[in-house]
């Protein structure tokens, strides 16, 4: 709870910062400092939760919000990822437009949304949380006003996003009609053998609405356009931290409330997962622009995260945490490198290993992680979510299909590595690559490997 208040305050402070502070760099320094404070508050909360309550969840405001140790831990990790994001990409964010303070304020507000989504106990909070997440995203997508693509992305995202909000709301309403409550634990009273059609329809609408937010097929079509059109620093944020935030909401609802109804929705989500994996991976193979490839691959990665939703067991929760962190960290790293490049096509990376060997090496590690090569975070992440699905035991065909798709994914991730290492050329950079950049990328890289070697460190045991 403290973190939610603190994040809101940070947002307010950042709103005013662009009036108070003249220099962009001082705004950047301010947000970094404030995020460190927020991280401290998060750590404090986690620590508190360990000491004060023995395993119990803290519930707030008439059971609107229940911050159990999982939620607090997840919030901590997401704050950490955001901090890393701001440290790595802060300068690039400042370059998008003139409203730097406002951008950071929106990012802080999005964090509030993520905090709400990790611990909501009431569908109203889910709805408001998703809106708090979405509205700033519409704005961030359109924040590069000199660029028509950015405006276009904003409009598309906005129209489709509010459409999906309508569907989500219809789902919530139908569920309420079946049970008479918005409390997610109240849905446990739904009986699996004689399920009220209202509830089933509600669950379907919820799957579609939430599936849109996490860009699951066939609700994924906005993703490439929006991610490609948005300013790259914000694409990095939207496709990673925000997306995994919605995933936790997804998981929370379907495990806590509909866990015992899984035979009704399991197949539907399995179909969605298969489609998502197929479309995301196949289309990513084709892209010429690395940014667009990352957009498609984020669909593919969402397919893997859907496995955590599919498998109703404890491993799925661990899986989503590891996946969230591993995917976010590695993606942010790749985006940070991408932002340095002048040319976003694969050819723009030609010969990077010659000119900037450190940069190329780090990029290679990030890509290994995204492709799921062992000893990187991505492998452990995929391993955990697939393990959860195997323990669930009902969707072995899907697991095998996912492995096949993971093999395909190596194709497009490795194209970047081939370009960097095996092709001649001289890449051009947007800005000079400073020692600071290398240091931060090195730390990110270390994190990626750390997740792959000692994943237990990132699980709140």
């Amino acid at each position, binding site marked *: 709870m403290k973190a939610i208040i603190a994040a809101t305050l940070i947002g307010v402070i950042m709103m005013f910062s662009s009036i108070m502070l003249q220099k962009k760099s001082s705004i950047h320094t301010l947000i970094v400092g404030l995020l460190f404070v927020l991280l401290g508050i998060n750590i404090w909360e986690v620590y508190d939760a360990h000491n004060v309550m023995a395993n119990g969840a803290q519930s707030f405001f*008439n059971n609107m919000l229940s911050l159990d140790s999982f939620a607090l831990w997840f919030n901590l990790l997401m704050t950490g990822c955001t901090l890393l994001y701001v440290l790595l990409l802060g300068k690039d964010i400042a370059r998008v437009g*003139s409203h730097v303070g406002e951008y950071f304020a929106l990012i802080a507000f999005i964090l*509030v949304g993520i905090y709400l989504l990790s611990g909501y106990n*009431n569908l109203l909070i889910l709805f*408001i949380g998703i809106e708090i997440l979405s509205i700033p995203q519409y704005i961030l997508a359109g924040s590069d*006003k*000199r660029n028509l693509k950015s405006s276009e992305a904003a409009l598309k995202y906005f129209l489709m996003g509010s459409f999906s909000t309508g569907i989500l709301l219809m789902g919530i309403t139908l569920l309420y009609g079946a049970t008479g409550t918005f409390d997610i634990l109240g849905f446990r009273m739904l009986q699996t053998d004689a399920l009220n059609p209202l509830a089933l329809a509600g669950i379907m609408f919820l799957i579609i609405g939430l599936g849109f937010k996490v860009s699951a097929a066939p609700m994924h079509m906005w993703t490439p356009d929006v991610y490609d059109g948005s*300013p790259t620093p914000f694409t990095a944020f939207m496709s990673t931290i925000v997306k995994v935030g919605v995933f936790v909401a997804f998981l929370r609802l379907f495990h806590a409330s509909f866990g015992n109804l899984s035979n009704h929705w399991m197949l539907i989500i399995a179909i969605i997962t298969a489609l998502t994996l197929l479309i995301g991976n196949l289309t990513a193979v084709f892209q010429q622009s690395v940014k667009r490839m990352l957009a498609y691959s984020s669909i593919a990665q969402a397919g893997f995260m859907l496995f955590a939703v599919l498998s109703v067991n404890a491993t799925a929760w661990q899986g989503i945490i590891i996946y969230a962190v591993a995917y976010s960290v590695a993606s942010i790293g790749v985006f940070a490198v991408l932002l340095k490049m002048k040319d976003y*096509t694969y050819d723009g990376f030609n010969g990077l290993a010659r000119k900037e060997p450190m940069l190329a090496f780090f990029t290679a590690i990030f890509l290994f992680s995204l492709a799921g090569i062992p000893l990187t975070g991505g492998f452990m992440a995929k391993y955990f979510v697939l393990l959860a699905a195997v323990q669930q035991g009902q969707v072995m065909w899907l697991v095998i299909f996912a492995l096949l798709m993971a093999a395909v994914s190596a194709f497009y991730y490795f194209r970047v590595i081939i370009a960097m290492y095996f092709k001649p050329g001289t890449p051009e950079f947007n800005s000079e690559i400073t020692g600071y950049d290398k240091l931060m990328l090195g730390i990110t890289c270390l994190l990626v490997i750390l997740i792959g070697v000692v994943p237990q460190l990132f699980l709140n045991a």
Partner: protein
Amino acid sequence: MDLFEILFWLLTIMAISCALGVVLSRNPVNSVLFLIATFFSISGHYILMNAQFLAIVNIIVYAGAIMVLFLFVIMLMNLNADVEPQKSRLVQFAGIISGGILFLVILAALRDARTHGTLEREATDIGLIKNLGKTLFQNYVLPFEISSVLFLSAMIGAIVIGKKESVHPVVSERNPHQN
């Protein structure tokens, strides 16, 4: 058929036909007016169901504020029937068909909904401001507070998007696939 039912059917027919008017009318201004009419009929339903407060709020907020905003924008852009491009017949047909099929599928799914709940005719007082206020500030105070964040971000959005970009040297993000 008593007065209640007559009113129900009257409002229902009005709501659906006005909603169709929104979708089908060529002139955007007409669409807005149809939508306002739809909102009025929905407010009528609210009153039928003893949700007086919401009925008023619906008229004030939706019909009064939001739709006026829409109307302003449409006027501002000077959009009228001649300007608005039409989708091809095929696309329109596909839209009607797919929407209709979705409707039928949901209808079929909920046909035998085992909620035999009925709406009592007697007036209840849950829709009164006093009751709603109590619920809002007892049980739903967190969403109430939290929605301030939403408004703050909407406000920032209006600033970020609405304000003209100040002219200052910025390195444009070049992407060869832009054009």
